Structures are given as C-alpha cells and as structure tokens.
C-alpha cells in the first residue's frame, strides 16, 4: 500500500532520516523530507508575586518590543447575575470602562487613554471578570493610575449608563438575527438548566437594571480575592510591582462566591427555532467535565480525534469530506468549576438535515462504543505534542495562557508536563472518557432553520418549537 509508506515517511520526517523507495507510478515522485533536529522548547521564567491585598501578579518580561500588556482576572462572572437582571455583569463591565473613573468624567477619561493610544477594556465571562489594557512601555507608569481608578473608583456616569444599557438591549435583541447566535443562547439554556451557568440576558432582564444595581453589583463582586494580574512585556518588574502595591495594596476583598451545583440538562430533547435561512445551524451537546477532572486530558485527546482537529477529525471526514454535507463541523470540550459542556457544532442545507444528523449520531455512537483506534490515538498524541510549540508564538499569548492556568488553579508545572500527560493517555483512557461523556442520555439538540424542518427532526426525538430565545424553554413531560 503506497499510502501507508508515504504516510509513514512523511510523518516520521521530524524524527529521522528514512530513505524512500517508491515504485514508479508514471507520475511524480513522492515528496522526500530530510531529517530535522528535535525542537528544544524552554518555558520562560514567569515571576509570580503577591500584593498585600492578595492579588497574584504574574510577570513575564520581554524586551523585544516597546509594548506592555496588563490584564486582571477576577473570579465571579455572569453566573453572579441576579435572577431577573441577567446581563447585569456585562453592563457593569461596559460601564466600568465607559462611565468615567477617579476624578475624570467619561469624556476626559476617554481622552486620557486615547491620546496615548491605550486600548483599555473590561468584560465578563461565565466564571470571571476581566479588565486590562495594552500600551507603549513608555506610558505604563502614567496609565496604571488610570487603570486603578477604573477598577477601584469607577464613576458609573448616568448618561453613559443610559447609552450602555440601550446598546446592551439592542445587542441582545439582535441575538435572534443569526442562527449561530440564537442557537448558542438556546444551547446554554437547555443544557445548563437549573444553574446560573445557563442563564442569559434578555431585553426584559436588562431593562430591569437600574444605576444603583450596577453600583451594588460592582461593590459586591469586584475585588482582589482570588484575582490574578498578568503583566507582560518591556517592563521594570520592581518598579511596576511597587506601583501596583501603592495602587492596589489596600483593596478590600469582595464577597465570597456562592457554591454552585451541576446543571440538569433538559434532554433528551430537540429545540427547534424556525427561521427562514438557507443554511441550517445545528448544535448538539451533553454535559462535559468539571475543571481538574482526572479525565480532562484523556477527553481532550478523544475530542481531538472526534471533532477537534479540523480536517483530520472523524466528524469532518464523515460529514464534510465524504458527503459534502457541511462547510464546517467540529466539537469542543469546555470545563467549568461545575460540569462543563461537550458540544458539536455544524450546519447544513435544509434538505440534508436528516442525513447530517443521521451521520452525526452514527459517528458519536460509534465513538462512544469503541473510542479511538490505536492509530488515531497515536496520530492525535503526536499532533498535540507537536502543536505545543504554537503556545510560544509570542510572549503575550503565552502569558495569557499561563495566567489563565494560574487563575484556574492548575499546577505550576502544567506547561512543562503537558506533553508528557498527553503522551501518557492510553487507548482505554481515551475511550473511557469519550464513552462517559457521549453515553449520557440527556443530550440536547438545537436546530435553527426553515419551518418545514420540524417533521424531519421528529425522527430523532421529541421536538419543541421555540418562538423566542428569551422565553423559558418547555421541558419534556
């Protein structure tokens, strides 16, 4: 089999010299790749310090460019939004940046930053708040006090509140404009039911937010406890540390975070949102793993094989390459502090939805039953180990990644030991992780597409039609 020889040769290219002896086909010769030396990657020295208030500061000095990036991760996030005021966290972070700070009105604060081309922002994710900036290193000492003002002395200007609130409501109401966005909302609601992780903002919930709610939310939830600050680039660490201590050292801790229990998916169920589009959007999912679950890396490897590796994944092969049923289909595994999500995302044209879903379920069922083959496992491990170098493309992306590891409580040597952990995954471990996740019966399937699809979907389970992503979902009896 010529293919096997060719593959073996090319895939071994990085490791050693292999002389080729291909039979002539009368066409071109197979490419020959000479030996290359193994790559020696050193994790650069991160320096971690702790401010008096408890904030961990992760420094990565790099003088290649006259640039600095600073970012603070604070535990909390949109899961803290009060019921009936979903979207409050997002609105608060928008206003943190736009609403003025310290003694500066919004307009003066904006000008102070933009005159120096400082890109400062704040945002919210499910489990954390984030606030940071990028600037030229020569401006760092002047920008840090503005940053501290934003985080510790925000003005939450009333006029800006009205604008940000109106913009947020408009943005949320536009979620129903595209199949991608609307299925994302429905997926979260259906899979992460009975948990704040599944909540999402609506025009109504945002309209309930008053200025005093923003202030109260800010005071309760933004603070140094559990927070990690990343400082990367062309900096004098001692000077920056001293300035950070003077700006943040006396920041008092925020409220303790509530405990959360795992979500309870509404599945097995199909939610169908009729929308007159020519490309149907499809999301399938089950609960994934909790962060630090021992099966975390085996599941990552299994997911890589199933749908996480682009063209080489099983789903892509079966759905796109073999049948032309989709432009893209992939799968992701996202851990949370409670059980996270495992999701398959794709789209197809309306008349091939049945075939797409049949193939997708078949691939998932096969994988749940038998897991990856030995050869798939080896190839995935090799790819994941080789891809590791990509984390080091720039000091800034590396520091972002490392800081998120520190923030989420991963061991200090995670980066150093990651490749060995991937290599150590056995076929049985990958299969067990895939089976544990994919064998769950309470899956959810979210579809947005033309009205007439509803009857096609009935072949796969109980279908509930949804007319607004903001309404509560009907559950199975």
């Amino acid at each position: 089999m010529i293919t096997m020889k060719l593959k073996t040769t090319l895939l071994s290219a990085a490791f050693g010299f292999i002389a080729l002896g291909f039979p002539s086909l009368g066409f071109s010769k197979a490419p020959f790749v000479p030996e290359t030396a193994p790559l020696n990657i050193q994790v650069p020295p991160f320096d971690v310090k702790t401010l008096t208030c408890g904030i961990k500061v992760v420094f990565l000095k790099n003088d290649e460019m006259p640039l600095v990036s600073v970012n603070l991760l604070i535990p909390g996030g949109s899961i803290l939004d009060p019921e009936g005021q979903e979207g409050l966290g997002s609105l608060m972070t928008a206003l943190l940046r736009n609403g003025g700070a310290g003694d500066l009105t919004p307009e003066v604060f904006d000008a102070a930053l933009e005159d120096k081309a400082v890109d400062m922002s704040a945002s919210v994710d499910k489990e954390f708040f984030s606030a940071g900036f990028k600037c030229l290193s020569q401006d760092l000492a002047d920008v840090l006090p503005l940053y501290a003002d934003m985080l510790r002395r925000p003005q939450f200007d009333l006029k800006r509140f009205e604008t940000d609130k109106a913009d947020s409501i408009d943005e949320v109401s536009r979620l129903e404009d595209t199949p991608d966005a609307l299925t994302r909302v429905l997926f979260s609601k259906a899979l992460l039911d009975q948990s704040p992780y599944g909540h999402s903002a609506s025009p109504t919930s945002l309209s309930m937010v008053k200025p005093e709610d923003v202030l109260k939310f800010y005071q309760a939830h933004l603070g140094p406890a559990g927070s990690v600050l990343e400082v990367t680039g062309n900096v004098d660490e001692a000077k920056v540390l001293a300035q950070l201590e003077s700006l943040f050292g006396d920041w008092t801790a925020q409220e303790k975070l509530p405990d959360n229990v795992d979500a309870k998916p509404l599945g097995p169920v199909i939610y169908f949102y009729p929308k007159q589009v020519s490309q149907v959007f499809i999301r399938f999912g089950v609960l994934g793993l909790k962060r630090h679950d021992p099966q975390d890396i085996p599941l990552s490897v299994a997911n890589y094989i199933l749908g996480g590796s682009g063209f080489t994944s099983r789903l892509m092969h079966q759905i796109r390459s073999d049948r032309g049923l989709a432009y893209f289909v992939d799968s992701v595994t996202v851990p949370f502090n409670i059980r996270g999500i495992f999701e398959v995302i794709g789209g197809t044209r309306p008349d091939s939805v049945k075939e797409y879903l049949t193939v997708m379920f078949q691939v998932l069922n096969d994988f749940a039953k038998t897991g990856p083959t030995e050869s798939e496992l080896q190839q995935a491990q090799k790819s994941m180990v080789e891809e590791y170098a990509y984390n080091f493309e720039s000091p800034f992306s590396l520091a972002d990644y490392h800081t998120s590891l520190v923030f989420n409580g991963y061991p200090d040597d995670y980066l150093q030991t990651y490749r060995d952990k991937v290599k150590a995954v056995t076929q049985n471990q990958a299969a067990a992780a895939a089976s544990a996740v994919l064998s769950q019966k309470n899956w959810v399937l979210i579809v947005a597409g033309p009205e007439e699809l509803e009857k096609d979907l009935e072949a796969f389970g109980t279908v509930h039609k949804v007319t607004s992503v903001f309404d509560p979902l009907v559950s199975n009896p």
Partner: protein
Amino acid sequence: MSLFCKRFCIFAFIFAILTAFLPLAAQETTDSDSGFNLPVVEKVLQNGLTVLILERPGIPVVSFSLMQPVGAQDAPKGKTGLPHMLEHMMFKGTETIGTLSYAKEKPILDEMDKVAQETNDENEKLQPSAERLKALADQMEKLEQEHHQVVVKDELSAIYTQNGGQSLNAWTSQDATNYTITLPANKFNLYATIEQDRLSHPVFREFYSERNVVAQERRWRTESNPEGKLSEALESTAFSASPYKDPAIGWMSDIMKLMRPDAEAFYHQTYRPDQGVLAIVGGVQAKDIIPILEKTLGQVPNPTVPPLKKNWTKEPPQEGQKTVHVYFDADPMVMMGWHMPNFPHPDGLALDVLSDILTTGNTSRLIQHLLFGKKLVTSISTETGFPGDRSPNLFVLSFNPAPKHSADAIVAAIDAEIADIQTNGVTQAELDRARRNIESSFLWGKISTSDLAQDLAYNQAVHGDWRYVTRYMDMVKALTPDDIKKVAAEYLTSPNRTIAYLERPAK
C-alpha cells in the same frame, strides 16, 4: 479555508524600531524615512519566486504566507468564485498525497468531468430533461463511489496536522489568494518539500463534491447572515462595471457549474512562481533555509501557457446616489459606501485617517456625537478598501440604528457630521490621535508571526513592494488637516454614495 477579504495594508503600518529582530547575515533590509527598519531578507529563487524572510530568534515556530496576486476579480465571465474554488482544491493533495494510486484515479476524474459537463449542458437547455439529469446524477454518484476506493481523504492536512501545523488555512480576496500555516521551527524542511509537491503536481480531486461544500459556505456566510447579505448587496449595487461587483465567493448559479478543467486551466494561468511571494517569519535563519528553498520551491516550474493578462473593467464615475433594500428577518442595519481610489493613492491614505477620526475609540466624532451624544445608533464603524485594494474601491460606513430612530434621520445626522469636516476640517490633535492609533495597531498586529508574514506577502504581491509595511507611517505622517478636509469634500458626497438598508420583511 476561509474567504477572507480583509485589507492587509490597513494593518501594515509601522513606526517603531524593529532592530530587536537582530541583524541578518544576508541580502536586504529596508529603512523608512523615520529611521525604522525591518531586517527582511529578500531572495528571488531561480524560478522567480520572491521569498521574504524575517528571522525571529528564540521563537520556536515559523509562519508561512504563500501569496499569489490573483483573486476573485480575475474570475472569467460566468465563472465567479473560480479562484476561491481553486483555493479549496489546493488542499486536495498531489499525485502522491491523497491517493492510493493516481494512475487508477485519473481516468475516474476525467470521466467525472464529462458527466459534470453533460449536466451543465443539460441544465443550459430551455427545457432540461429531469430524467436525463437524474441519470447523470446517478452516474456521478457511481463514479464518486468508485473514486472513494482510491482516494485518501485530507491527507495533506493530516501530514501538516500531525507535525504540529496550526492555522493551516487559506483565503481568497478580490485581489489575492493566500495560503498560511505555522509549524514548529524544526519542520521547515517538511513545509518546503510538501509545498514543492503541492505546487508542482496538484490534483484537484473531489472537485464536484467540494462544490457542494463551497455552496454550504456561501449559504452560511452570506445567505443566512444579515451582514453578509447586506455587504454583498452594497458591493453589487455600488459597482456597475468593476469586477468588484461580484462576490469573492461567487454567485450560487456559477458555483454549481464550475468545472475541474476550468480550475486547472486557471491554475496554470495564474499560479506562477515568478509572480508569487512566500513570506517566512519565525525561528529560522535565512542562511540555512535559502539553499533548501532553492532545491525545493525554487524547482517548481513556471507554466508554459501565457500568464493571465489583467484586464479589469474600470468603474465609471458614479453620478447619482444609489440605494438598495435587502429584506431579512433581523433588526435593521445600514451600510453605505463612497467610491475611493486604491492604494497607494495619497487620497486613499487621507481617507484611512479620516476613517479613524470618525469611528475609532470613544473620542472619535461619530461615536462621541451619534452614539453617546444623540443616541441615534447602537454601533457605528467605518473601513476603507472595501472589498479590495487593487482597484478603486469603497469607503464604507456601517451602523445599527437605535430603536425608534429612522435610518434616514441617522443618515441625515451623519451627513451633518461630514459637512462639518468638509467645511471646518479636523484638528491637528485629531490627526495626531489617529496617527498614534494606527501606529499602535500596527505594533500590536506585528506580535504574531503569522500576521507579519501575511503583511509582508500581501504588500509584495498586491502592491508590488513589501517595503510599504515600513513606509506607510511616513506617508501617513506627511498628511495635514487640510488633506483630510479635502478628501472629505471630494469623496464623501451624496452622488458618489450607495446606501444599502437591511429591513425586516413585512409579515
């Protein structure tokens, strides 16, 4: 393989010292008048392929951008989307990659071409025979099953992926086609070898099933997406003669009748080493890799057929405002475009700066006045060089109206803002701020090896000189507030404008 129509020169602005990239042992560096230099090694291989190398010592990866100055606007009549389809086909392998036996495969591929041609011919008839079309479809399916026995799916991608390849991708814009990948730095040989094979012996297998994938891409990006629909309507309305009037992905009816022999012919006409550019940025040394490049990519022959002659129709001056209404089940959006000259016309640079003054940051005029001030819009942005930058193009302004405000009232408010600039100009402070934004964006954009590789390749392939990457800031620095006032008055006029409205259909 994404269809990516971003304008790279927009990011190709520089002001800072890049000497930190270390001195090189080789050929060429450049200086801008501001004293900034980018130590790029420039080498033309024996077959004419231009190679640009920027060493980044200590970075364990290397990024590649292989750019051909051929894009969607070069598509033959009735074959819109062919350059993009060709881009997809370049991932299908070679005579030895992606197949168990090309000798067995070739006759099947030839037979598929015949069936596809007969299908096209039947569809062109005034009254196509459903029976005949069904028979042809069955025949094609049978051939595909036969072909399935000899094909090795996505083997080219698998080779790269298993060697740590990231961002294996490509895009086709109106002006250029680009192939990217980032690999561990010790995989340079692998890249050079595979790409030599890919360019010398490509096989466009699975062409007709891939047409369906491209059709899915079009449905997803354009037809099921309000922004995609609106921007396509703006292009096809604003341009009446320029090839920019056709979408880069192609019209659906053209996509579904594209033929493999057309792609092969187009490939030989346009993918010429002596017109291509390969930019390499990362942890490699020029002195080590140039000999390897000569032995590999330098050996790719130039086709014997004459190259495609560029023959783009020029857009005549627009003499009255045009409008178009697009109906889609979504909240309203508006895009408007004014015709503008292409890079490196000085007026184009002044319009780049005007774009920044209008909508970049909270202090910009339209954000400050229309979003925070009058609360007429919930978002507003501008861009230049749409949908390409090699021919005269558009200055585009997009906004989402705030609820209860009519699009026309907002257009009137925008007109008043523009009139103010046309009459009173902009301040030196505004100009300085815009310039600093542009400088900063460039520096941050240059952190990534892959972005920088694309900047270099784009400027060389599309604008003829990678040095624009360093010269752009000198050109911007030379602008005065009067230059900004002048272009606002000359280009941002009502007769020169097209407005595209997205509206929800009446129930």
